[in-house]
C-alpha cells in the first residue's frame, strides 16, 4: 500500500523549521562575534552584492521612471498653473513697463520742448497732439489746447526742431493745426545763406515747395531754409528744412525748390504754439547811406 504524500509533509516541515531556526540562531550569534571575525562575512557578501546589484538597479530605474512620470505628468499640474499665473504676471508687468517707457519718452520730449520754450526768444504754450488725419484732404492734427488756454487762429506752431504749421480753427479745449505740408498753408521763408526770400507752401502730394525764389538766386541743394519773419505768426530764423531739389523751367519767371522738412510730422507728440515774440528785425529805419557826389 503506497504511503500517501501528505504524510511526509510534517516531517519536512519540521526539518525546515529546525534548519530555519538554526540559521537564524547562527545569524544572531554572528552579531556577537568580534568585528575582526566578521570580515569573512564581507568576503562572502561581496559576490552576493554583485548578484543583487542588477535587480537593485532595475528597481531603482523603475522607481526613477515612476517618479519622473509622476513629476512630469501628474505633479506638474501645479507647476503648470503656477506657470500660467507667472505668464499673466509677466504680461501685466510688460504692459506696465511699456506704459512707463511711453511716459518716459513723452516726458523726455516735453522736457526738450520745455527747455526750448525757456530759452527761445518767444512766448509759447506747450500742447499735446490728440488726433490727426481726419480726412485725406487736409494734412492736419488736433492739439489739446484751445481758446481757454489762450490759443487763437493763425498762431504759429513749432517744435524745438522747427516749424510745424499754423492754427486754423480753435475750439474751447482743442485746436486744429494745419501742417506745413498742406497746400492751404503758405508762410514766407528765406534761404539762410543767400537771404533770398520766397513762399513756402505744401502740395497735395504732401511735399513742401518754396516758390517765387528770385531767378538769379544762388540756391543749392542742402541750403537751409528758415522763416523770414514777415508775418505775425512766426519770428525770423525758425528752421523749416533743407533744399532738396531746385527747379526752373525755361518759361518760368522764378525758381522753385523742394524742401525736406526738419520736422517729421508723422512722429510728433507735442508742439509749442507761439503766442508772441520779439521781432528780431529792427523797426527803426536803416542808417542813411553815404551820399554820392552829384556829378
Amino acid at each position, binding site marked *: 500500500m503506497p504511503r500517501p504524500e501528505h504524510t511526509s509533509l510534517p516531517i519536512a516541515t519540521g526539518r525546515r523549521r529546525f534548519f530555519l531556526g538554526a540559521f537564524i540562531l547562527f545569524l544572531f550569534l554572528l552579531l556577537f562575534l568580534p568585528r575582526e571575525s566578521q570580515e569573512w562575512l564581507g568576503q562572502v557578501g561581496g559576490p552576493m552584492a554583485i548578484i543583487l546589484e542588477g535587480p537593485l538597479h532595475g528597481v531603482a530605474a523603475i522607481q526613477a521612471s515612476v517618479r519622473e512620470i509622476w513629476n512630469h505628468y501628474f505633479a506638474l499640474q501645479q507647476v503648470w498653473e503656477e506657470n500660467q499665473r507667472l505668464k499673466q504676471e509677466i504680461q501685466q508687468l510688460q504692459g506696465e513697463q511699456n506704459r512707463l517707457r511711453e511716459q518716459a519718452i513723452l516726458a523726455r520730449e516735453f522736457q526738450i520742448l520745455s527747455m526750448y520754450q525757456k530759452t527761445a526768444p518767444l512766448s509759447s504754450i506747450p500742447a499735446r497732439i490728440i488726433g490727426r*488725419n481726419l480726412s485725406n484732404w487736409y494734412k492736419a492734427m488736433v492739439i489739446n489746447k484751445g481758446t481757454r488756454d489762450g490759443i487763437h487762429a493763425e498762431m504759429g506752431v513749432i517744435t524745438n526742431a522747427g516749424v510745424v504749421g499754423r492754427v486754423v480753427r480753435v475750439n474751447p479745449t482743442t485746436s486744429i493745426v494745419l501742417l506745413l505740408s498742406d497746400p492751404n498753408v503758405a508762410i514766407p521763408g528765406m534761404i539762410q545763406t543767400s537771404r533770398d526770400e520766397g513762399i513756402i507752401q505744401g502740395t497735395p502730394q504732401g511735399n513742401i515747395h518754396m516758390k517765387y525764389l528770385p531767378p538769379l538766386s544762388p540756391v543749392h541743394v542742402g541750403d537751409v531754409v528758415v522763416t523770414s519773419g514777415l508775418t505775425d505768426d512766426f519770428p525770423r530764423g525758425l528752421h523749416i528744412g533743407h533744399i532738396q531739389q531746385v527747379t526752373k523751367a525755361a518759361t518760368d519767371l522764378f525758381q522753385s525748390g523742394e524742401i525736406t522738412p526738419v520736422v517729421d510730422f508723422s512722429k510728433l507728440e507735442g508742439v509749442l504754439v507761439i503766442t508772441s515774440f520779439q521781432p528780431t528785425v529792427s523797426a527803426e529805419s536803416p542808417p542813411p547811406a553815404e551820399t554820392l557826389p552829384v556829378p
Partner: protein
Amino acid sequence: MIIVWQIVLCLGTVVAQATLSTLLSVNNIYPDLCLIFACLVGFFTNEYKGLLIGLTVGLFQDLLAPGGIGLNMILKGLAGSLAGVTTHTVSTVTTGAVVIVTLVLSLGCGLASLIVAYPSLDGSDAFHAITWILVPQALYNVLLAAGIFWLTHKVRHSFGVVHFARGRR
C-alpha cells in the same frame, strides 16, 4: 435712450477717425470711417435715419477738421440718405449693391471735398489728387463698408435675426 446711443456711436466714429486712422492707413490713404458709418446706417435702416446719423457724424467731423463747418455734415447726411434710398430701389441690399453705392457716394463726396479743400489746384496736382487720393480712398472705403456689411449680414443669418435695426418705412 436710442438717441443717446446714436450720438455716442457718432462720437465714437469721429474719435476713431482721429486716433485710429494712422493705424488703418495704407500708403498714407486713410478710410473715411464717418462716411462708411453713415452709409451702413442707411443700408441697414432707412433714408431718414441715414440722413440724421450722417448729419450728426458729419457735424462732429467738421468740428475737428480744418475746413469750414457744414461740408462734411452735408456730404455725410446726403450719403447716409442716398444709401437708405437704396433699400427702397432694390428688393434686397446685397454686398454687390453696397459696393456700387458706396463707391459712387465715396467718389462724389471725395470730389466735393477736393474742390472745397483745394480750390486753386492746377491740372497736374488735380490729376494727382484724383488718382492718388480720391480713387484709392473710395476703393478703401468700399472694401471696408462691404466687409462690415458682409460680416453683419452673416452674423444676422447665423443668429436668425431677420429684421436687424430696421426702422419704420
